[in-house]
């Protein structure tokens, strides 16, 4: 199955997808990308992900802790903040409304 979609969709839906994934499990950047890709979310690369995480952090929706459990420099483990969780709740409700509206519009196509 071709699961690619236009990058416009990524721009709009990445906050919802990433916050959901991070709320479920705190991750470092590469692991988050792997999880999103494994869920069928296409087209995310490092060039998109790290600036995006920095923006989420500057908005206070995501925070990081240092993980020094491996060799070499520490890694950032990202997790959702309380305010990020509230934002995710609002985004999810909004997404469900968008989805319902678009489903109605799309399903009426060809019905006259």
């Amino acid at each position: 199955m071709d699961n690619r979609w236009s990058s416009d969709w990524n721009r709009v839906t990445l906050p919802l997808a990433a916050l959901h994934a991070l709320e479920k499990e705190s991750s470092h950047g590469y692991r988050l990308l792997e999880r999103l890709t494994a869920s069928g979310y296409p087209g995310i690369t490092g060039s998109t992900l790290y600036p995006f995480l920095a923006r989420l952090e500057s908005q206070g929706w995501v925070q990081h802790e240092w993980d020094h459990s491996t060799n070499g420099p520490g890694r950032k483990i990202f997790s959702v903040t309380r305010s990020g969780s509230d934002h995710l709740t609002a985004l999810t409700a909004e997404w469900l409304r968008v989805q319902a509206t678009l489903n109605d519009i799309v399903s009426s196509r060809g019905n006259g």
Partner: protein
Amino acid sequence: MKKYYRQVAASLRQRGVAEGEILATLNDIEAHSRHSGKPLEEEFGDATAFAEQFPRGSAKPAGRRFTVIMTVLAAVFLVGSFVAAKLFGTDLRVGALSIPLFGAVAIIVIGTIGGFMIDRRLPKNFEGSLPREY
């Protein structure tokens, strides 16, 4: 590869990103690239374009500060030379006293090049080639 890190670091400094964040970002992309097995350019694209996607910060880059200080020094040096020339009734444009003019230009050039080099340095403690498990 170090050139790529230097470009990212310089561009992030120009955006006012704090040194700690720059170090963390370089560590992240180094680890990411190591894990994915893809070269930095392929994974993250053009270094400047990549850095420009990060939110702006409020840190003042050390290189820019150095350039400003050197330019101010050059201006003070030049004004001082003009005042001295006026007092002693000499012409700054000729003879030994033309040195201040070239001196001021030299200070500005050193300040500009030095500032550029300072902002392109890799962050302290960045070990871009350390082996590690990821």
